[in-house]
């Protein structure tokens, strides 16, 4: 029964409409049901997998990186926990308020953090974003106790490399850095993935696989905020192996102290085994600064430093040897039978080749000199003559035998070969034939000859250990929990092949260098221990110096000669060999020799070193 406004036609229309509506409703429901069917039955499995993937989070467990010790077991490089603060933007009601609260607990750059949060909101509001790395213990304590009041904030712990002594032995130890694209692409480090820190230089770099270990994995049930709810499965990580270096920390400290404020290198070696007890290169760098990554402000300073602190001068610095090369000449002369040790030469201060005069550093001349005196007082003229007698190619041959002009095979790698010129070389490299004058220069370690400090250390060791050139080593031991997978073994690489009696003659001369009254190395003399060695003063640029030199005026630093001193002690049965090179340091005997004395005293006599370095500022008398 309807009211009058609803006459039969209206009723009919109404009913028809309602029927139509009913059909529409049924159709709509059907569509919905079909959609549900599609999602839940047809694709149900796929969604089930996705929901599992949501709830299970695979968490890497980084392995404990191997530690690095010195030869006596003193810890040099450690891993420390780095506490990092994260914020999940989606969980925060009031960003401003949270930042204000956090600022009371942490030192924050509010604008930077705000921007980070805002960026994250636009991209992944449900993922945590890092706002502060490596907070201090104090900050950690405050934040942890207040976490309940800080929704959306969480702290994650990551291990971080820590170099206990900063710059100490930095060239040996090396530094870390983030694995880069090309390394990843080449598959060089299969145990590492994007974002990992790997060793990039030094021992950290070369023994990366040994130190790294194997990462582990956890399957964790997480909620949408990434909160860990329970651990479903776990694969424990395999820690990296520890490395014990051949380096002696105390000796290393002393060596670096000697190089303070200078540029140069010191190599200390065990002459009987080739173990490197200290390897210092100055200037150095602090590997801790490489840990921050690109955010670090210090890093560009290191990389752009004009003095190249990253360069390992001990193995990659090439310098003219100066007078220390005379030992090679002497050995060559004796072994070839072209030199009679008793033969006397008169040094008047000058040697004339044709019309060209070659000066001896002692302008007044040494008078009559035979081999011993020639070595002890480092007479240039004596060696000019001997050099001429030998000729460049024979000298080169012996230089190679002594380990120069080639890599020593040092375990750390990255060495340079230096240069031992031959007549052929001059033709090829300079397009001009070898001149007799070149031989003269070569005889006193000038001209084209270039060597590295580690070659020098290896050589002087060979002279005193019976003629064996050992491969310099830096690793004493590699250990893990249960065993010692690697133990150092001395590896001889070649022999000098010089008769023992000749070696003895040389040794005698070198003892005299330090202990005879006129010896150039007198500053290295120690009363209770016999030190033997050779000084060297390598010219940097001869011509320029002559032009600008004025009587009594100080020579500009970059024209100053390099100061060399190579030595062993005790001479009879040496336990320490040193090669010291001070760039632009001046006189070998004046500058380098006293450093050797200090190091020998500390190492052999356990004496506390008095680090007082001589700088006499003498006007240069070139040629030693």
């Amino acid at each position: 029964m309807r009211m009058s406004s609803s006459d039969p036609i209206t009723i009919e229309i109404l009913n028809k409409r309602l029927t139509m509506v009913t059909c529409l409703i049924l159709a709509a429901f059907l569509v919905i049901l079909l959609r549900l069917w599609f999602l839940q039955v047809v694709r149900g499995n796929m969604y089930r997998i996705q929901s599992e993937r949501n709830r299970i989070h695979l968490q890497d467990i980084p392995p404990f990186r191997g530690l690095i010790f010195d030869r006596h077991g003193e810890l040099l490089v450690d891993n420390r926990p780095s506490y990092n603060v994260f914020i999940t933007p989606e969980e925060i009601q009031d960003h401003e308020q949270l930042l204000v609260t956090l600022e009371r607990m942490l030192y924050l750059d509010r604008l930077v953090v705000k921007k980070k949060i805002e960026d994250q909101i636009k991209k992944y509001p449900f993922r945590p974003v890092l706002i502060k790395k490596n907070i201090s213990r104090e900050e950690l304590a405050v934040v942890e106790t207040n976490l309940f009041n800080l929704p959306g904030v969480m702290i994650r712990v990551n291990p971080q490399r820590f170099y206990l002594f900063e710059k100490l032995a930095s060239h040996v130890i090396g530094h870390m850095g983030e694995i880069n694209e090309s390394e990843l692409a080449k598959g060089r480090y299969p145990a590492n993935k994007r974002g990992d820190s790997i060793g990039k230089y030094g021992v950290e770099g070369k023994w990366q696989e040994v130190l790294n270990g194997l990462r582990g994995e956890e399957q964790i049930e997480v909620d949408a905020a990434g909160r860990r709810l329970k651990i479903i499965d776990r694969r424990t990580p395999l820690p990296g192996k520890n490395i014990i270096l051949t380096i002696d920390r105390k000796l290393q400290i002393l060596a670096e102290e000697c190089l303070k404020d200078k540029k140069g290198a010191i190599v200390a070696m065990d002459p009987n085994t080739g173990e490197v007890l200290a390897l210092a290169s100055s200037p150095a760098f602090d590997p801790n600064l490489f840990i921050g990554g690109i955010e670090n402000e210090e890093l560009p300073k290191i990389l752009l430093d004009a003095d190249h602190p990253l360069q390992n001068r001990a193995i990659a610095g090439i310098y003219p040897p100066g007078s220390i090369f005379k030992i090679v000449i002497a050995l060559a002369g004796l072994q070839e039978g072209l030199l009679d040790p008793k033969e006397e030469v008169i040094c008047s201060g000058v040697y004339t080749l044709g019309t060209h005069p070659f000066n001896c550093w002692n302008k007044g001349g040494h008078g009559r000199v035979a081999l011993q005196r020639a070595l002890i007082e480092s007479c240039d003229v004596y060696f000019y003559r001997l050099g001429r007698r030998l000729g460049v190619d024979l000298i080169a041959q012996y230089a190679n035998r002594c380990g120069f002009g080639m890599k020593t095979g040092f375990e750390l790698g990255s060495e340079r070969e230096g240069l031992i010129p031959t007549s052929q070389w001059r033709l090829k490299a300079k397009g001009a034939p070898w001149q007799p004058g070149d031989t003269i220069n070569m005889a006193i370690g000038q001209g084209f000859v270039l060597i590295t400090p580690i070659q020098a250390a290896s050589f002087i060791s060979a002279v005193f250990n019976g003629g064996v050139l050992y491969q310099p080593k830096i690793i004493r031991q590699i250990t893990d929990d249960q065993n010692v997978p690697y133990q150092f073994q001395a590896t001889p690489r070649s022999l000098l092949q010089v008769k023992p009696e000749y070696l003895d003659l040389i040794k005698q001369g070198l003892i005299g260098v330090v202990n005879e009254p006129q010896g150039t190395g007198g500053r290295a003399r120690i009363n209770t221990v016999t030190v033997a060695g050779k000084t060297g003063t390598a010219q940097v640029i001869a011509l320029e110096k002559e032009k600008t030199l004025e009587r009594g005026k100080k020579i500009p630093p970059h024209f100053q000669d390099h100061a060399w001193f190579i030595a062993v002690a005790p001479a009879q049965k040496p336990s320490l060999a040193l090669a010291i090179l001070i760039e632009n340091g001046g006189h070998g005997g004046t500058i380098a020799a006293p450093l050797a004395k200090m190091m020998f005293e500390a190492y052999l006599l356990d004496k506390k070193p008095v680090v007082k370095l001589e700088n006499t500022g003498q006007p240069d008398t070139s040629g030693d």
Partner: protein
Amino acid sequence: MMIDRRLLQNFDWILLLILMMIAAISLLNLHSATYPLRESGGLQIFTKQAYWFLIGLVVLLIMTVFDYHLLERLAYPLYVLAVLLLVIVLMVGDARSGSQRWLNFGGMTLQPSELAKIAVVVVLAKFFNEHGEMNDYRLRDLWLPFVLVIIPCGLILIEPDLGTALILIIVSSSIFLFVGIQRNTLIILILVGFCAAPAGWFSLKEYQQKRITTFLQPDKDPLGAGYHLNQSKIAIGSGQLWGKGYLKGTQTRLNFLPEQHTDFAFSVLAEEWGFAGSLVLLLLYLLLTLWGINIAKISKDRFGAIIALGIIAFVFWQLIINVSMTTGLMPVVGIPLVMMSYGGSSTTATMAGMGLLMNISMRRFMFQ
């Protein structure tokens, strides 16, 4: 107003039963949806909703006591009150999550847009009852109903509450279509709608625009704007045929599903009860809808029929849009599911609407 014995005889028990069943499912589901929040006040939500259902029941009963024709007289005043409240809420309303939708009356919150929904239906019913013939409405006849709809719609849009405004337009359009517009007028209206669409797009806020673009390309940004939709589909789909079990939905438990006690309440149910459970709920809603249509059919006058239709349209459209949204058939527009989603005003208003339905049904045999 006397309670006639016949009214009691005609009391629509079945409607009440359907409502109770839906309410029961709703409460069960809500408990699960708020379970992960149980330590930070989740239980409160559950108890509050139960409380709202009880109040709703009372309101429903109150709505049956008077004759619904009373509303014919009160239609315009009621409408004016609703619009006023909408204006007031814009000025002094509670600002929450970026929109002003609620009025606070000493602890009680009221959402004027809910009241506006009923008011618009009633006022439209009155208009179409008194003016013109079915199937014969032209553009010039419709200017007043347009205005009557546009005003509250616009006010709601300003809040901003895109979802409610949209529903209001759709339901009003349903009513317009139901009462019959001339074909030409209809075509003109559709064209106007198309032209207005771009203007509408640009007037949308950025996040609202983003919702639509995300809908069209959901995989482009799974952790950002596409997140809700993606997680909802995962929840629903992973329920498969029989569901993961009550309280065992991992998407729900682990908080992967956002808004799980409001917009995405259906996803919770679908995850835990599977296709089977979803089917049951949808059947209940279907039953409710068809029952309402039947009431419209058997109601004794046009006024009642239109009101009934309007109320059912609200339930129907909100259901369709919400479930389409959660299953990825439509962009996310923030329309909750009637009775399933948590919300005091929404529940109460729905129950009031149901009460009206009941009212119309009870009085179908009565003479004025």
